[in-house]
């Protein structure tokens, strides 16, 4: 038990250190961008004024308000202090909206889109891969290359093609947005139906790209396991085929679960392309808008969320593996 405690303490300490360093980087990197968002706000506030002194007055007023005239380290300390209060700051580009307000209105869309899509893609991919490994011939010769080719179409490419075919050409899917253009959010069946319709294209575009990678991985793992000695031995012993296959796929699944956890952890950053192409409201679109507008507080918040999600995924994997994988266990006691 002592080994476990040591293992987990170490993992958690590293988790915290990583989190802190990532936070510093998340804070500093956007601010290295050679742009001045205060000037952007000033521009909006001042309009086409011909009075130049007034413009400069507005500028210094906002510089003061955002604290951009202070040294980076002071800015960071203020950021940390506010963070502990749950305040992610005020957005530059959507001033005076709060960052937390912007994030909370977009993250739901992203999670609702990405997580089911990743899971469905993962399931279909694994089933395909397993079948390909088991059935070989036919499946392996045709289905695998096809899935592989599809998975090699860049994400934006398949999104654009889906958009063109279904929304522009055949007009069977809506063109943009999270719900119908002629609706106001409410709790009616019609609205839910509209949300589902708008969900389809971005959903399937994500499913499509994730299938291939999963299928290939699962196929390799399954073949590896199918060729393993214990399978041959079991066959030799005359154990039922179905039972062997059960063992094989359970073993092959283990690394695939890692993949699933990591994809879910990375879902927020993966949302970028699909959300932009389909004008889907979500954190990907938000982040893209934030980057192009040099909206530091918003970028920092988005990247922070991504960081935390990936970190949590990694940490939980580490912990779960610590319990279930005998090799990891051994390594810890060994050390």
């Amino acid at each position, binding site marked *: 038990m002592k080994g476990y405690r040591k293992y987990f303490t170490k993992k958690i300490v590293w988790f915290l250190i*990583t989190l802190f360093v990532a936070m510093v980087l998340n804070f500093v*990197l956007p601010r*290295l961008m050679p742009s001045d968002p205060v000037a952007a706000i000033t521009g909006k506030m001042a309009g086409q004024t011909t009075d130049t002194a007034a413009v400069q007055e507005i500028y210094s007023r906002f510089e003061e308000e955002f604290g951009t005239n202070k040294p980076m380290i002071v800015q960071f300390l203020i950021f940390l202090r506010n963070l502990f209060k749950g305040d992610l700051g005020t957005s530059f580009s959507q001033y005076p909206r709060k960052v937390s307000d912007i994030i909370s209105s977009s993250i739901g869309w992203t999670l609702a889109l990405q997580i089911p899509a990743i899971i469905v893609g993962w399931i279909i991919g694994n089933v395909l891969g397993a079948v390909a490994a088991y059935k070989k011939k036919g499946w392996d010769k045709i289905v695998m290359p096809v899935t592989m080719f599809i998975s090699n179409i860049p994400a934006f490419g398949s999104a654009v093609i889906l958009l063109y075919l279904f929304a522009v050409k055949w007009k069977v899917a809506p063109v943009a947005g999270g719900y119908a253009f002629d609706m106001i959010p409410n709790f009616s069946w019609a609205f839910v139906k509209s949300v589902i319709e708008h969900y389809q294209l971005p959903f399937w575009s994500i499913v499509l790209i994730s299938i291939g990678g999963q299928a290939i991985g699962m196929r390799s793992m399954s073949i590896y396991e199918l060729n393993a000695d214990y399978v041959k031995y079991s066959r030799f012993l005359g154990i039922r085929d179905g039972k062997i296959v059960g063992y094989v796929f359970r073993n092959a699944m283990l690394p695939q679960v890692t993949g699933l956890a990591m994809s879910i952890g990375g879902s927020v950053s993966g949302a970028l392309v699909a959300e932009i192409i389909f004008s889907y409201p979500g954190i990907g679109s938000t982040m893209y808008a934030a980057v192009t507008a040099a909206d530091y507080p918003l970028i920092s918040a988005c990247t922070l969320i991504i960081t935390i999600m990936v*970190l949590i995924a990694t940490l939980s994997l580490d912990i779960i593996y610590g319990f279930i994988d005998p090799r990891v266990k051994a390594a810890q006691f060994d050390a």
Partner: protein
Amino acid sequence: MSNTLKNLLHSPKFMVGFILFIAILLTILIYPLFNPGNPLEMIGVGTFAKPGTYISLYDATSSQKETLKIANAEEKRIAAALSDEDRVKMLEWLSAYGVDVTEVDASNTDAILELWMANYNPDASIKGFTKSETRNFRLIQNRITELMSADTLIIYEEGAEDSKSKIVKTDYVNLNAIANVKTLPLGTDNFGRDVLKELVSAAGTSIIIGLIAGSVATVIGLTLGLLAGYLGGNADEIIMFITTVFTVIPGFVLLILISYSLGQDQRGPTIVAIVIGCTSWTWTARSVRSQVISLRNRDHVNLSKLSGHSLGRIILTDILPYIASYVVMAFILQVSSGILSEAQLSLLGLGPKTTTTPTLGLMMNWAMLYSAHTNGSWWAYFPVILTIACISFSLNLMNTGMDQVFNPALRD
């Protein structure tokens, strides 16, 4: 070694991928010989010329004419100017104008034309037609006027009194007799550039970007992975910590931010490739590390250690050769992901800044900026997607093939 090669040559997956990749490479090398010149030259004024063969109208009028009497030429001419929908629309207008059209069939072009010519009045404002419909009727009228005008076109030289030549409806010119004929198999893009020529050149640039990015990523990943795996202990902890930091800050965001921070004028294709490499090495490092860990307690490594060989020597002679095949495969995957990253970055307008070399991502970016995908100009973006998919498909096929050769356990 030769045995491995032989096995590779016998792996259908590897061979298909390899041949596809070589075919792409050969096209990149050979096509410019047939179609030389600057791939970014704007040959068309205007945007998105359709794929097809273009003949010089100027040359055609002065070429040797032959008279051909083709039975349905006139019908085709009318069909090209007046679609079935146009005819229905014309009847609609006529009936709204108060003309009795109950007897007229929509397929009876002559009857419709006759009624139309007799009645159409561009200035009549008829209730019930929208602005765009009224405009469309005027456009139909323009086409009909052109169709119905004289049978002979007379060409004058600028400023001259006498006609230069006359063209009648039965005049034909042999395609081979025209001095200037240009085939644009994939049309032109929004700048009026030859898409095929640009695509071939861009594929070359993108492969180079992929190679640079792949090399950078593999070198960093390999070095860190080897060190972490072999040294273990604190060095391992620190290296893995750095790797985790790079993993948790999403590569894509990192990429955007770094390439942003680099400043605009330095964002050439090479720099972008290096930046891509610098953000995508993490999984190579992780996998190399785990491979090395499984190797480091092997007997031959321990033997070398006991013999007092230096760290460098042990890594180079006792570890590297055992994971070489693995590294090659990782490199191939990095190349293909580098090409994808460039395309993705450029699509968001964050890719390389260059006006002299086309890249696949920039082509895609311009096509999107001029909404080629919504206005039906498929030739401006679809071949680009297909090219990216083919390059990365061929690389991945090779990779899978190699995987099977190097890991006998994976063989079918």
